[in-house]
């Protein structure tokens, strides 16, 4: 049977996580439909239809779906579930919010944050902050799976667009309502999909020093900015900058950790990066154990020097 991919998007555009999750879905099976739930979401649906390997795009539009609140969105997916044996979503904040609700409504267990498709019913997923990899098999009638997008490359955009089919969502009682989004505005690449990430830790000492030290290097490299939990908790960076077990998982080509000690919870979010650079004044800091290139010294000297030398 077929696979339904619940896409991550903001109505106006499709996020790259969806194209990455599509690669995972196509490893599970060949017939993949993408669900775009939203309002005014035709642009996202068109972007989804252009991806290579998509059978159809299902476009469900309703005011209640504009922000993909969990209750109406899960109800919609359950309404469609009969035609599919696998339901996939990228493990973004939206996928993580909605899919377990779908799984419970279908009375099946979910497989969270899979990093590898071993067989259509068997997956690898990290546990204990990535310190162990579980190989799990699901015999459930419907497999509900969230995908760690950093582990899959994005599906290509093809020449022939897949058909877009409009779906009428059933009305469900509203249990929650959207008030507002307070999104961090910046012109840098998206942290989860950036090719280069420059991250700062507690050592930055203040929001002002974080921005004055990390941002110029990031801008010179065209990089996204990340942070440790300690830096976010202290208010040096916004919550959506947090990299780690309980923040974002990233795997860029280059990750530069500035004044970050390398706690297991932080490593869980970045240790699959291709090249890791660590800058730390303590030569014994655990971050050096995962770094390809380590430099012992003061970030307030080294980071600006890098920026000037580039």
């Amino acid at each position, binding site marked *: 049977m077929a696979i339904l991919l619940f896409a991550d998007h903001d109505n106006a555009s499709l996020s790259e996580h969806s194209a990455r999750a599509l690669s995972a879905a196509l490893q599970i099976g060949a017939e993949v439909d993408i669900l775009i739930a939203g309002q005014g979401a035709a642009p996202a649906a068109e972007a989804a239809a252009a991806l290579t390997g998509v059978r159809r795009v299902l476009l469900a539009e309703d005011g209640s779906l504009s*922000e993909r*609140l*969990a209750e109406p969105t*899960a109800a919609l997916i359950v309404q469609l579930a009969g035609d599919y044996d696998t339901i996939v979503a990228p493990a973004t*904040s*939206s996928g*993580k*919010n909605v899919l*377990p*609700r*779908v*799984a*419970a*409504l279908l009375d099946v*267990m*979910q*497989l969270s944050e899979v990093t590898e498709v071993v067989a259509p019913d068997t997956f*690898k997923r*990290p*546990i*204990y902050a*990535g*310190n*162990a990899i579980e*190989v*799990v*098999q699901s015999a*459930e009638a419907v497999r509900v799976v969230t995908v760690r997008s950093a582990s899959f490359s994005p599906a290509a955009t093809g020449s022939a667009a897949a058909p877009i089919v409009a779906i009428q969502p059933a009305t469900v009682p*509203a*249990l*929650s*309502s959207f*008030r*507002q*989004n*307070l999104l961090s505005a910046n012109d840098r690449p998206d942290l989860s999909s950036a090719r280069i990430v420059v991250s700062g830790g507690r050592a930055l000492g203040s929001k002002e020093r974080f921005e004055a030290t990390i941002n110029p290097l990031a801008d010179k*490299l065209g990089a996204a900015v990340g942070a440790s939990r300690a830096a*976010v*908790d202290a208010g040096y960076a916004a*919550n*959506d900058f947090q990299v780690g*077990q*309980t923040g*974002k998982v990233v795997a860029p080509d*280059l990750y530069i950790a500035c004044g970050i000690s390398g706690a*297991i*919870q932080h490593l869980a979010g970045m240790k699959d990066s*291709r090249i890791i*650079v660590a800058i730390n004044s303590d030569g014994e800091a655990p971050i*050096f154990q*995962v770094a*390809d*290139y*380590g*430099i*012992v010294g003061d970030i307030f000297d*080294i980071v600006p020097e*890098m920026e000037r*030398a*580039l």
Partner: protein
Amino acid sequence: MKILVPVKRVVDHNVKIRMKADGTGVDLANAKMSMNPFDEIAVEQAVRMKEAGEASEVVVISVGPAQAQEVLRTALAMGADRAILVQAEGRVEPLAVAKILQRVAQSEEAGMVILGKQAIDDDCNQTGQMLAALLGWGQATFASKVEMSGGSALVTREIDGGLQQIELSLPAVITADLRLNEPRYASLPNIMKAKKKPLVQQTPEDLGIDVAPRLNVLRVEEPAARASGIRVGSVAELLDKLKTEAAVI
């Protein structure tokens, strides 16, 4: 309003875990166990709501082995009123935990359930959402702020692009993110008092819930190790390596 807070006993977040030699799982024998850090945040939130007069009683519940009583006592010392242990050995998956919690939330007539957003051992990030679905309640996951107003709660959620505010009709399920609050340390007198607070024991069978796992863990593997790196002596050397050897800039 009664608040139910599920708390899970997990390996302490400072422990570096080891694999069992036979690849069947993680060796937790003798490992230090603690309350899941997100659940401490959930307990703190519920206790603060009681202190603010927004909740009448805080009931904590754990599904796990007999030793899970320790994390329940910790929650009682933080200010919860009473505890329930649903004793289950071995692997209990989020769906089964959610079914147990559903029964208890219904029999206790809870007006709100506050859970951690994820447990730091299995990292499933499912239980709260599943519970909300089974109860037919609204959900607010990854909460960093909860404000009560009459029959609803205004919740600020941590999402990928920043923050989102939603209004939630009660009863409802909320899952706690890191920045919801900073949990208190229990004082010695409160730890003593907690020993006398009620703790009842039940089994999944008492509640009529089958906890047999649905997923089959075939094996547990060691993650791929990274090749060891090098130390560089200067910024010039670092940039040269990044350009020529790694070819990333």
